[in-house]
């Protein structure tokens, strides 16, 4: 019997989350580009304009969700690509830990930045 070439893990949930975040990101990434490059122009960006958007709870929470889903989708995509190339054993565990740490740092830094704009959670 021919060897089965796949990194797909039966019963795994990362595959499903990669698809669910993809469906969300398709819409939000397109919105992000459209809002910040077409409705507003990149060279007109100021702290005050970013602040005005971030002070709205709807926009603030959407951007936090965008940050978390984009980080998961991107980092999980990198991990899947490396596993697909044959990453295994101790190196796989090490890569998983490093990517996990990088994700946490990115999300923390992104949330800190959002809070700096909004002046705290805009409730």
């Amino acid at each position, binding site marked *: *019997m021919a060897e089965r070439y796949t990194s797909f893990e039966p019963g795994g949930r990362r595959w499903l989350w990669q698809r669910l975040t993809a469906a969300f990101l398709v819409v939000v990434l397109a919105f992000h*580009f459209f809002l910040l*490059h077409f409705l507003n122009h990149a*060279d007109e960006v100021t702290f005050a304009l970013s602040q005005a958007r971030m002070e709205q709870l709807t926009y603030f929470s959407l951007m936090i969700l965008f940050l978390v889903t984009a*980080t998961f989708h991107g980092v999980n*995509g990198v991990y899947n690509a490396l596993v697909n190339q044959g990453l295994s054993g101790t190196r796989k565990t090490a890569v998983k830990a490093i990517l996990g740490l990088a994700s946490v740092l*990115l999300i923390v*830094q992104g949330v800190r930045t959002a809070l700096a704009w909004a002046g705290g959670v805009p409730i």
Partner: protein
Amino acid sequence: MSQSYNRGLIEDFSRWREFSAGMWAWIFHKFTGWVLVGYLFTHIAVLSTALSGAAAYTNTIQALESLLVVRILEVGLLAVAVFHILNGLRLLFVDLGVGLEAQDRSFYASLILTGVIVVASVPTFLSGVSI
């Protein structure tokens, strides 16, 4: 029982002329994915200048946006993002069992639509920059 051989990455890619549409779609999706995740980290790093105060943020963004090379890179980013979105939609549909028989045509459609959107966006992305 069939024997499997690991030909190695370089030899695999040396046969690029024999690649089918689906293989190109896979390569482009990986490539654009790597670029986008790299950009995500860079993007948050640049936006973090907001932590140093309003003036630091505004000056950093406006200085970057005044550079032609940054605008050109942004057009490249748009191309990468649009292709990843369109090909991602194609993958979602294929995963749901829709359009598998037309997966090569939907890849070509993704490429063409990416090209059209990017070309149409160039004037917007380059507006107000001095050469």
